[in-house]
Structure formats: structure tokens, C-alpha cells
């Protein structure tokens, strides 16, 4: 059964069919909410509210887009509204200036897994919310730029530019804050 058929089931009154969407997308939804809210409690509340909104407005879902894109857009909007946060501040320039210069674009992963997870989580906390969100959407779910644009409300070229800067900042902060541990990560 495809997603459109499941949507139709829910629309005809079968509420339990909606649990498929909750189960399938809740992890990514909470990741998005967490990137914006910055804490788990708020992120959970945002995801819950978003799913209820999605359920109530399911009749307005157009099957031309993916359900996930539509849902993530709701999560994004709910989180931004709840936290009243400005997503696309240009504070990264300062961070970039303070970060050490890296000579190469090549990135190699040779660090222990646990160590790496902690590092990545830490860097994602340090970079601006918008950048962390873009990296998450782009790399975690392989969302194409077009879909990221419709989730965030930015235009495609803007997404590309911001994604490029986010990648650069991520690498620079990784080098700056974890110079010792990452001697093997960036090959100069």
C-alpha cells in the first residue's frame, strides 16, 4: 500500500492508518525539531503538535509532493513559531573568521565511532540552527535541494549557497575545536 492510499484511508475515518506516518517519520521530525528548539522536551511537544496539525489538515495534502516533505514543512513552521527564533541569522561569519584555515577540502573519517558521534553532535550545536538543519536535511535523508527549499521556504539557490557555507563552517569548527582528535580527519 502506498502513502497516498494510506492518506485516503485516514481521510475516510480510519485514524489508526495514521500511525504508519508517525512511526515512519517521527525520528526525522524530532531531529528537525531538535535542531530548531535545542532541547528534547520542546522538540517532542513540537512533533506532537505538528502531527496533530498534519492530521487535521490532511485533506489539504496534495499528493504531487512527498508526504515527508509536507510533514517536515509543518514541523519546521511549528518549531520556528514556538521558539520564535530567527532561523537564518548571519552570525556564522564571525565563527568562520575565528576558525582556523584549512587548506584542503578533503575529509576523511578515521576517528572512533563514539568519539565521532559526540563531536558531530557538539559541532551541530555550535553552528547556527539554520546551518545544522540544512546539513541534517541534506545528508540525513538525502533530500534534494528542491525539497529542502520547500521545507524551509528558502529558494533553491539560497539553499545551495547556505549549504555550501554550512559545510565549510562545519569543517572549520571541527578542525578548530577538535584539532588534536581530528589530526587524522582533515588531510592537509
Amino acid at each position, binding site marked *: 500500500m502506498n502513502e497516498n492510499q494510506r492518506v485516503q484511508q485516514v481521510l475516510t475515518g480510519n*485514524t*489508526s492508518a*495514521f*500511525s504508519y506516518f*508517525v*512511526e515512519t517519520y*517521527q*525520528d*526525522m*521530525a*524530532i*531531529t528537525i525539531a*531538535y535542531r530548531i528548539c535545542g532541547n*528534547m522536551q520542546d*522538540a*517532542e511537544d513540537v*512533533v*506532537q503538535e505538528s*502531527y*496533530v496539525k498534519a*492530521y*487535521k489538515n490532511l485533506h489539504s495534502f496534495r499528493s504531487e509532493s512527498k508526504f515527508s516533505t509536507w510533514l517536515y514543512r509543518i514541523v519546521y513552521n511549528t518549531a520556528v513559531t514556538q521558539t520564535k527564533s530567527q532561523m537564518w541569522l548571519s552570525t556564522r561569519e564571525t565563527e568562520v573568521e575565528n576558525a582556523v584555515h584549512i587548506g584542503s*577540502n*578533503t*575529509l*576523511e*573519517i578515521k576517528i572512533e*565511532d563514539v568519539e*565521532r*558521534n559526540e563531536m*558531530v*553532535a557538539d559541532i*551541530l550545536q555550535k553552528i547556527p540552527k539554520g546551518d545544522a538543519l540544512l*546539513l*541534517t536535511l541534506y*545528508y*540525513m535523508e*538525502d533530500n534534494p535541494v528542491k525539497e529542502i527549499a520547500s521545507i524551509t521556504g528558502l529558494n533553491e539557490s539560497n539553499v545551495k549557497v547556505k549549504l555550501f557555507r554550512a*559545510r565549510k563552517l*562545519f569543517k572549520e569548527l571541527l578542525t578548530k575545536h577538535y584539532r588534536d582528535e581530528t589530526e587524522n580527519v582533515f588531510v592537509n
Partner: protein
Amino acid sequence: MERKDKYSEDESFRKMIETSKIIAPENLKYRIMHQIETEKVFTSQESNKQVSTRKTTGNVLKDLTSIFGTMYAVLAVIIGVAYFLQGEEFLKSPQFWGTIILVGFIFSLFWLISRLDANMKEKRLKQLSKKNETQQ
């Protein structure tokens, strides 16, 4: 060569970012589904209320137009008959006005009884639905 570097860099990023995926807590799904079920019940109750309110207001208007419409028709007939049979002077007499007031009073009483009956029915229905809810 550059393309290959870009691809491997993307792969490295993918591997790193994937590790930061947050797993939703076990109870979140149940919380969401529970709220959705509650919303569903609440929405259906709301729509039932709206329908019953619409029904009640519809009944009041229907009663008003049908009962008082008939009353005015009867009054018009009485006035017409009195005018043609007894002449204009009779229309000013206390007998005629007494008849008019009596007709008006009877129809008002009739309307009042029908409204009381409708209210009692409504109350009974509400009590029944409350009983059903508590039983569920």
C-alpha cells in the same frame, strides 16, 4: 579528480551527520495517536453540537412562521368577512377587537406549548447522550 573528491567528501559528511539522528522516545507515538483520537472524538462532538443548534434554531423559526403565519391568515379572513358582512363601523367595535385578541391569544398559547414541548425533548436527548458517554 575534483568530482571524486567532492563525492567522497559528501559521503564522509553523510556518514557523520547520520550519526546525529535523534531517535524518538518510545512513548511519543502513543502520545501523538492518543491526542489524535481525542481530537477526532472532540471534533465529531463539536459537529454534532453544531448540527443540533442549527436544528433548534431552524425549529424555532419554522414554528414562528408556521403558527403566526396561520394566525395572520386567520385574522385577515376574519377582518375581510367582518368588513363585507357588518361594514366599517363593526371593525371599531369592542366585540370585533375582543375576537381579534382572542385569536391572537390562542395562537400565542399554541406556540408557547410547542416551544415547551421542543425544549423538554431537547433536555431528554441531552440527558440520554450524557448517559451514553458515561457508559462508554
